[in-house]
């Protein structure tokens, strides 16, 4: 059963079903869209359930040649990295659709676009053929542009355009690099071009070629992440997008960038990776501190969360380019966690915005008294985002910091100050919105969350706690896939991955058995 093809096709079929809803029954659109967004989640869960733990190679592979002469094929697979991106995507779409009740104009178009967007995102994470990957990468752009420009708030035209132009610039670099890479590969294989990932992987690239191609890919992905200083499209797009748009944008679209780095830059261009690691890590750390600092003074709560994403995604990039098992694994976990926590924050902001139609922090105050359930969820999301241990955000960022220190100590120490800044911008915002007396009379009598809204939040809360308390199943699935990337870097460059911090030869005498296995029974004395 080509489960991955089915997974990609399901939202599209769903879009078709939604498109067939009679025009005079707009009230049916949202329920039907919600129902058709469930099968992709089921399919993704099937993949998650049947994923072989400890297996570093690609799984559920599908391979059909599309265009022989150009070496283009329909080539799909998952590994430990894309697995969770796929599950996260399949999870966030139903939640975002359920949270879109305030969309009243052209609701059918809206839902069709959402489902096309889902297909696009899934395609990005599952495609191994670079041509198909690029096609999906571009397809994602258009529904998102339309979602922002048609259902966004006041300044939507500017934000949508900025989003498209920034990404398009990146895409241009990406396209050129992909074509160049395919042609080089094809040349070495004796054909015109070859886009298949596994063939491209075999291509013999000179260091200079690697530099150029790495640069082309890196610009596209850095804009997508976004890495400082390419981030300025993000606050506008996030702020103006409708709630679902912000959730998907932050939750999964940004991860296309970090995923791209892991899948392509690090895997295809190991030498360039080693040489460019430090400059990219520096940009990441600037982003961590800068994003957080700018978040502190934002007057608009959505902009604040948008800048916090710049900070969090900086952690992900730092972990990736620290080139350690811990750092990179932590990065993938943070990608998941950021999707959950920022998704939760944007959903919650959307819920209150539907009631008050303002995002200005100054318009609020004392909400906790009026809407206690809402405030409880919000405070939970705040602490999840601030990296409270026991919740998902901490697990990822802690692992990144521990792992990154092994190769980039100074940068990592600076990055760690991000935890202080996160507490400042989040708790100060919470204080101004939720505590103190109620000053704005318009807030009196606001409705607290209803059953539907609680039902949207509960899955996120459960996953945030689950990932925070027992992340082992996730780590087990990610680590082998990360390991294979690092192995390749080690095999092709002079770089040596620090296994763990232990200075060699000194410690084995004392505790060889302890760190090897979790079996602590014998050390009781």
């Amino acid at each position: 059963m080509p489960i991955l093809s089915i997974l990609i096709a399901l939202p599209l079929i769903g879009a078709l079903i939604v498109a067939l809803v009679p025009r005079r029954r707009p009230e049916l659109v949202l329920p039907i869209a919600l129902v058709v967004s469930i099968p992709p989640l089921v399919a993704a869960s099937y993949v998650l359930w049947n994923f072989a733990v400890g297996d570093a190679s690609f799984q559920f592979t599908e391979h059909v040649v599309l265009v022989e002469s150009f070496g283009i094929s329909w080539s799909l697979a998952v590994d430990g990295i894309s697995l969770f991106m796929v599950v996260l995507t399949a999870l966030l779409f139903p939640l975002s659709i359920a949270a879109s009740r305030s969309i009243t104009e052209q609701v059918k178009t809206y839902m069709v676009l959402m489902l096309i967007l889902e297909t696009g995102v899934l395609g990005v994470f599952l495609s191994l053929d670079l041509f198909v990957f690029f096609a999906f990468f571009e397809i994602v752009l258009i529904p998102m542009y339309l979602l922002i420009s048609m259902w966004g708030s006041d300044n939507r035209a500017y934000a949508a355009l900025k989003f498209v132009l920034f990404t398009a610039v990146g895409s241009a670099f990406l396209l050129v690099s992909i074509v160049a890479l395919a042609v080089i590969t094809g040349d070495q294989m004796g054909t015109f071009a070859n886009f298949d990932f596994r063939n491209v992987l075999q291509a013999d690239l000179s260091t200079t070629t690697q530099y150029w191609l790495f640069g082309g890919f890196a610009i596209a992905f850095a804009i997508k992440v976004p890495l400082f200083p390419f981030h300025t499209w993000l606050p506008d797009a996030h702020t103006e997008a409708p709630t679902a748009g912000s959730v998907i944008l932050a939750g999964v679209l940004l991860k296309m960038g970090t995923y791209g780095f892991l899948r392509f830059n690090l895997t295809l261009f190991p030498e360039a990776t080693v040489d460019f690691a430090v400059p990219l890590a520096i940009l990441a750390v600037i982003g961590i501190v800068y994003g957080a600092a700018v978040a502190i003074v934002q007057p608009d709560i959505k902009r604040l969360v948008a800048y916090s994403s710049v900070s969090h995604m900086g952690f992900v990039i730092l972990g990736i380019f620290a080139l350690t098992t811990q750092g990179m694994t932590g990065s993938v976990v943070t990608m998941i966690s950021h999707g959950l926590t920022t998704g939760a924050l944007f959903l919650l902001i959307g819920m209150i915005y539907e009631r008050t139609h303002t995002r200005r922090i100054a318009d609020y105050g004392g909400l906790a008294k009026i809407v206690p359930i809402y405030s409880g969820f919000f405070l939970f999301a705040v602490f999840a985002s601030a990296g409270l241990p026991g919740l998902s955000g901490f697990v990822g960022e802690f692992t990144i910091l521990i792992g990154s220190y092994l190769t980039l100590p100074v940068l990592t120490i600076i990055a760690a100050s991000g935890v202080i800044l996160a507490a400042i911008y989040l708790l100060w915002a919470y204080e101004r919105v939720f505590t103190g007396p109620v000053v704005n009379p318009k807030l009196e009598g606001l409705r607290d969350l209803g059953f539907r809204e609680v039902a949207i939040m509960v899955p996120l809360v459960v996953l945030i706690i689950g990932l925070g308390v027992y992340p082992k199943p996730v780590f087990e699935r990610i680590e082998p896939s990360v390991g294979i990337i690092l192995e390749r870097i080690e095999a092709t460059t002079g770089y040596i991955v620090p296994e763990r911090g232990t200075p060699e030869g000194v410690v084995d005498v004392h505790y060889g058995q302890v760190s090897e296995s979790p079996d602590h029974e014998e050390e009781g004395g």
Partner: protein
Amino acid sequence: MIDVLWLVIALPLVGSTINLFFGKRIGQPLAGWVAFGFVALAWLVALPATFSLIDGSIPVETSYLFTWIPVVGADVALLWDPLSALMTMIVTGIGSLIHLYSIGYMRGDERYPRFFSFMNLFIASMMILVLSANYAMMFIGWELVGLSSYLLISFWFTKPAAAAAGKKAFIVNRIGDWGFLVALMIIFASFGTFDFQTIFASAPVVITVGTATAITLLLFVGAAGKSAQIPLYVWLPDAMEGPTPVSALIHAATMVTAGVFMIARSAVLFEMAPTTGAIVAVVGTLTALVAALIAVSQTDIKKVLAYSTISQLGYMVLAMGVGAYTAGIFHLTTHAFFKALLFLGAGSVIHAMAGDQDMRTMGGLRKKMPITFITMGAGWLALSGVFPFSGFWSKDEILAATFAKGGWYIGLWVIGLLVALLTAFYMTRLFVMTFLGKPRWEDGVHPHESPATMTIPLIILGLFTVSFGLVNTPALVAFEHFLEGSFQYVHHVQGLSMGAIIGLATIALIVAIAGIVWGWLKYHRSELPAEDGKFWRRSRDAFGVDEFYGRTIVEPGKKASEWAADVFDVKVLDGIAHGIGSGTRGFGDVLARLQTGQVRAYAGGVAIAGVLLIIVFLAVGGGF
């Protein structure tokens, strides 16, 4: 026995969850009794395990529960040794009493069940911190107690001061946590594990003195946040915005001692780094002094006790710095009893005074609330260091250990004595202003003794306050003997002769009595003495440290953020983007076309084309 220890964490967590979801239905005061029940149960579970340590049959045990973060070797595992047993007894024992007290104290509060949910959460968090068998798990507890502290300080969140105080506590603690976090990075880089047993057994072989110094200094940054030391102590006085049982439990008896506990736990590493030890001792001593100088002038009864707590934590930190771990932990224990007692007593007084906390409007409460008066009297004498109350023994041990170090540490000993004098003075001031003399309360206030749920905890704590010091005297060293298992890797400093010990104790006692007499003569009069003059004013403003931080850190930080947000991001970075855009005419052209809606039509067209392309892909590749 160790196999059931996880219950000590799980029970309060269950209690917290029950009250969070069903507390409203359970109602008052039952919700409080439920919460109390879970903490008391946790105490009962830990009790036999503690006794098994006292008879010395099992020195140290670990219990692996599950793997947390495999890639950094972080497990959820418990360590049961005398130190964790002692802390468990303090946290669950005093915790139970304070829960009991709160049943009456919080009666009538709108969010009564929520209060108990948070209190139980705190106990669970603190137990995670105390029972952890590795630094990573300790950090979980470390941050979770910070969360509970935040929730409880800003419990009355409609008061802006309470909300701000909670936020300030969390943020200042996060500054300390940064140090802890960096220490964890170096620990992992050096040892490849966070496991206590492994680290402590191998540290002298694995790391250099330099690395040990770096690790311990950074750990101390964390400890200074949690245990309110210079320069991070500023959050604790504000934390008094929380309900008084919270101040007693979290901000006096237990959470604030976590920093001291963490240093004691890491004693092996601190022993390797004498430089850190010296810094720790100096910071502790200065904190003790500065806080005592502020405490003398405060008129809010809780503020006196808050600064007193900072000051006493300074003593404990001094003990850690001079390597007197047992003495420091002993003082931690006795302080937990008498400071919890004093806070609960203060709560009883505030309760009686209908919420008034200003000692200038109290006086003469002795007859109105005799149990509170007598028990607080015990607390007053214990904190002042009067023989044979518990505080005398523990404080004296710290001072003696400092003296024994010799050299410039004698200077610290002198400052320590000065702090003892000030302590006796401000506590006498508090006691006299509150209970003795003529009533100064306003009309309409009718002070009365508190209900039994509040006085029983006072009496129990009072008994411990009076007697607990006797478990560790020069004649009987049961406490030190008990803790030996936890400091087995620690090199012990040689002791003083019995004559020297008695001599030093006598000096300390004379100083304490002098402080009491001074305070008594100054405040036990018909009229309160005027407290004006430059020192009193500066002291009452806490020497303007908060304002200083505001001027030098908060405001410039905010300005920098504003510059980054409003100038750099918008003008510089976006300006470049716009410049490139208009430079290539692309931006302007597209913008012009946007007006006509062409972009949207174009995008729609591309979308349809894209979808068709996917369908073709799928049809060919997916085999539909």
